[in-house]
């Protein structure tokens, strides 16, 4: 992102030729395994495999929960990014490290953490249980698991955008008499809208792929907690063809989301 903010000198590519070799290998490293998966798809039965009741239920649940968790990331993540980027916070470095922790934790660890916090005997869950609220095994638990792992993606993207944008416009607006809330809605948010958009897309894509935390915290029941990644994992047990077909659906949906939203934004940033 910082690179696109500063225009490069015209006509200078500045890349040593040899750079292209490892770059190409890197691209292949990502694409060849996907192609390898494609060679195993049973195209003849592809449609029946992906339109079975359980497959459709899983796809539907995945999309719904990913939308919900992305919304949760928006509500929680934007203020977090703002405070991290602009707030007078002491120990910012450590706070950021903590906030980003789910990024590096194995998802199953996140799931355990959620389970022992919001589970029936958990730190918070035992109090919720008293008032009759049980989260484990509910769709809400899926959304919580996805939000837990996706939130850092939004915070990182947005914080980067906020830092790149700087605070000059806000300062001007403030000197012209705008109240902080007004500045936030009318200046800050529009300024970092592209960064916010890419953060939302990343969160959505990550939610779509979430597996470990969901299984550990929310369980797996068709139509309630069994998202597409869980369905893929389960089908693989008995029907590898169905698993591969569903895996392809997941890849396509994720690629569409990231490609359409993220690609367009980057293209926009370059041409701007």
């Amino acid at each position, binding site marked *: 992102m910082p690179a696109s903010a500063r225009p490069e000198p015209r006509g200078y590519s500045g890349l040593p030729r040899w750079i292209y070799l490892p770059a190409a290998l890197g691209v*292949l490293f990502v694409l060849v395994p996907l*192609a390898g998966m494609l060679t195993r798809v049973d195209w003849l039965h592809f449609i029946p495999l992906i339109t079975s009741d359980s497959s459709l239920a899983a796809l539907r649940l995945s999309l719904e929960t990913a939308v919900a968790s992305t919304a949760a990331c928006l509500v929680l993540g934007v203020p977090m990014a703002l405070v991290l980027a602009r707030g007078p916070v002491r120990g910012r470095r450590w706070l950021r490290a903590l906030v980003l922790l789910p990024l590096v934790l194995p998802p199953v660890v996140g799931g355990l953490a959620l*389970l022992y916090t919001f589970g029936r005997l*958990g730190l918070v869950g035992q109090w919720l249980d008293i008032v009759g609220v049980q989260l484990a095994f509910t769709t809400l638990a899926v959304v919580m698991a996805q939000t837990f792992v996706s939130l850092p993606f939004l915070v990182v993207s947005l914080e980067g955008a906020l830092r790149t944008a700087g605070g000059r416009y806000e300062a001007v607006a403030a000197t012209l008499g705008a109240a902080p809330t007004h500045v936030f809605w009318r200046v800050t948010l529009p300024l970092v809208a592209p960064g916010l958009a890419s953060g939302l897309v990343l969160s959505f894509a990550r939610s779509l792929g979430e597996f470990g935390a969901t299984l*550990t915290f929310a369980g*797996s029941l068709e139509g309630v907690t069994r998202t597409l990644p869980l369905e893929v994992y389960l089908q693989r047990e008995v029907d590898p063809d169905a698993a591969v077909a569903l895996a392809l659906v997941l890849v396509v949906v994720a690629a569409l989301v990231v490609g359409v939203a993220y690609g367009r934004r980057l293209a926009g940033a370059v041409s701007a």
Partner: protein
Amino acid sequence: MKALLNQALGAAGVVLALALTACGGTTTAGGSASSSASSGGTLTVFAAASLTATFTELGHDFEAAHPGSKVNFNFGGSSDLVSQLQNGAPADVFASADQTNMTKATNAGLAAGTPQVFATNVLEIAVPPSNPAGIHTFQDLTKAGVRLVVCAQQVPCGSAAQKAAKAAGLTLKPVSEEQSVTDVLGKVISGDADAGLVYVTDVKGAGSKVSGVAFPESSAAVNSYPIVALKDSKNAALAQEFVDFVRGAQGQKVLGDAGFGAP
């Protein structure tokens, strides 16, 4: 066109793999293991995850009884193990948690002989030690408000649960159908599930974290563990010795202590 694409992709994959190997500087260990003496050599045993504790112990016992031998294990879900074997993973012995996956292996021509059952396992109800939902019989699992967790039908413990339910003439209404016994047990241990259907050996392995409730209907779904030496073994004699060792007195003692039934 498609063939051309496949070729191009294949070639690209080879280049990539070579490049990565070069980067990592990994070298594969020489594959010329000594295949002469049946007492020495290295065995690779692919075994179901539920055998982790017992087979690790048996491996040590086997090494002690066969000086110079070394037993390495690859534990995992039986269906994973079969697909690894089908895709060329080198192994000498395969121990499956159910007949279905062993049949897959034999149908794929992987086995060196006829698989032999070396242990059995039956279902048991796992409940938190305090047994909050008051589960004492299989019928209790269908009481209103009981949060039951089972394995999904696609995995062996799930199909066993279905068989037991059918034998009892009951329809189970679980709040979650998990991918493995471990996942079911986890939900019971955390207290989020009131009851889970797992194997006797799992309840025993979990120690004081869960209590077991045996039920007669479990006899309708006895699970058998078959073992076989593999055709591609470089050390066929030693592989067969390991199979015999598991089925012999010492193997049966260790398995029995863990809660497995005799074949």
